[in-house]
């Protein structure tokens, strides 16, 4: 965990209204794990005051990538940055995905910008695991395929392959999933994660999900990002420090 000033190497818009920043940060690139995140201060003054958390999207040599859309003031400022600008980054933070479990097929399930952490997951697994990817969004504009492989897509309005939610799409493939030794990796809106949890419990699938919550510090001192634990109801877990990735059976979504 460090605070570094890192330079933006390249800015891309891989699809409409989705931004991708390639940032030269050897210190972070050398140690960050898939599913971990960065807390970025986008301005030099007091507005916005707090850092903004971003999943690491990909790592390539000494460079890290983040992906985002414009949600508020912080991301609006970030979207105006260009190659050559520097960013104040705190990271790597949190607990990421465990890719080393006993499984043969990685099933990636992404809703909207929940696709952000999976290009790095895909990069690390593509040579030694089979990957099946399911991507959902409200419309075709919210279905983000950047850096992903072997995917099927779903949208609420039916403008892509499948009409419905990404978990509905997943259900259509149940037979295949049952025939393979799988582990599911999910990230997306809470409603999607809830429905994914039900699906995994019904079918006894192993699954890890990346969660999100408003937070200030990103490393445990503000206590701003509680998530209810299944095992110990006396105490909250913290999304920033105990997560953001949890076994889907360990937390109340």
């Amino acid at each position, binding site marked *: 965990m460090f605070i570094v000033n890192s330079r933006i190497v390249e800015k891309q818009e891989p699809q409409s209204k989705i931004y991708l920043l390639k940032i030269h940060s050897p210190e972070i690139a050398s140690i960050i794990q898939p599913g971990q995140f960065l807390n970025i201060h986008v301005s030099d003054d007091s507005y916005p005051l707090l850092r903004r958390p971003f999943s690491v999207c990909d790592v390539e040599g000494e460079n890290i990538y983040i992906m985002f859309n414009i949600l508020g003031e912080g991301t609006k400022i970030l979207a105006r940055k260009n190659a050559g600008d520097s960013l104040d980054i705190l990271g790597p933070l949190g607990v990421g995905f465990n890719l080393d479990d006993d499984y043969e097929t990685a099933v990636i399930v992404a809703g909207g910008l929940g696709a952000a952490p999976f290009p790095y997951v895909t990069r690390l697994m593509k040579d030694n695991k089979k990957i099946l990817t399911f991507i959902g969004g409200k419309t075709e504009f919210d279905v983000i395929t950047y850096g992903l492989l072997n995917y099927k897509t779903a949208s609420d309005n039916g403008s892509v392959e499948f009409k419905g939610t990404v978990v509905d799409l997943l259900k259509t493939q149940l037979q295949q999933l049952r025939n393979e030794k799988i582990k599911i990796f999910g990230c997306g809106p809470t409603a999607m994660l809830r429905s994914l949890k039900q699906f995994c419990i019904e079918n006894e699938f192993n699954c890890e999900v990346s969660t999100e919550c408003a937070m200030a510090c990103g490393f445990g001192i503000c206590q701003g990002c509680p998530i209810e634990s299944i095992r110990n109801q*006396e105490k909250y877990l913290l999304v920033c420090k105990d997560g953001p990735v949890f076994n889907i059976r360990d937390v109340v979504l």
Partner: protein
Amino acid sequence: MSKVDLSVNIGPLKLRNPVMLASGTVGYGNEISVFSDLNKLGGIVTKSLSLKPRKGNPPQRIVETPAGMLNAIGLANVGVEEFINEKIPFLKKYDVPLICNIAASTIEEYVECTKILTREEKIKAFEINVSCPNVKEGGLQFGNNVKAVGKVTEKVRAATDKPLIIKLSPNVSYIAEFAEVVKKEGGDAVSAINTLVGTAFNIFTKKPKIYNVNAGLSGPAIKPVALAKVLEISKTVDIPIIGIGGIMNWKDVIEFMIAGASAIQIGTLNFIDPAASERIVKEIEDFCIQTEVEKISELTASYVIDK
């Protein structure tokens, strides 16, 4: 030897410099120690401790506001016992004064916590939180009532010989009368200010953004309020003041001292730049050298008000 004497006294509590870390913004010290050398600081104040562990409020606990943030953590903490067994051993590795912040629902609980913790040698002082806006019981029900603050001060004073600091609420019309009663009942110092009560709504759902509805506002947005409260106490009551509220840099530290603070606490800034406090100690020293201040304590209440 540094050229400037940065040491300050908060009543009987001696600090190597006036820069402390505020309760609720440093946990129990371990995370922040990755970024700032705790041994370089004036002191650290623990997250509010209660007799039993507290789970705290459900999410959402935090929302950002212009130049500030609202929080309603709800005093989530490990409780006195786990603090002693699990947290103090880490803090013992550092030569930094440890100030224990205590929150409670009843006067008896304040006293009980203090009695247990006062036996711990590592704890150099107590800061009593009578001003948390985010819990139903305790907190502000004491902090808004001069008699109750007097009673808490009196009873906790009887339970410890260690320096006793009362952390005051800004959500009152005349803060100086609270500082006055703290002094009268034997308190050694006051911390001013705790957060201001605030809230925020989602305009589409019409629901509060914070689960608890009300929350505490902190950050640079509250600095002018905090300075005015420090000045009010400083002009009226002869008691050491620890200034708190939106300190973002070394200039803010100097400003609080001029307004009457003997020391200060850095709060919200720790969330954004956990390395800031150590740097600020160096920067206030540079300021003193540049302006030929030999003892930083000379700055306390050095305001020049012509009328």
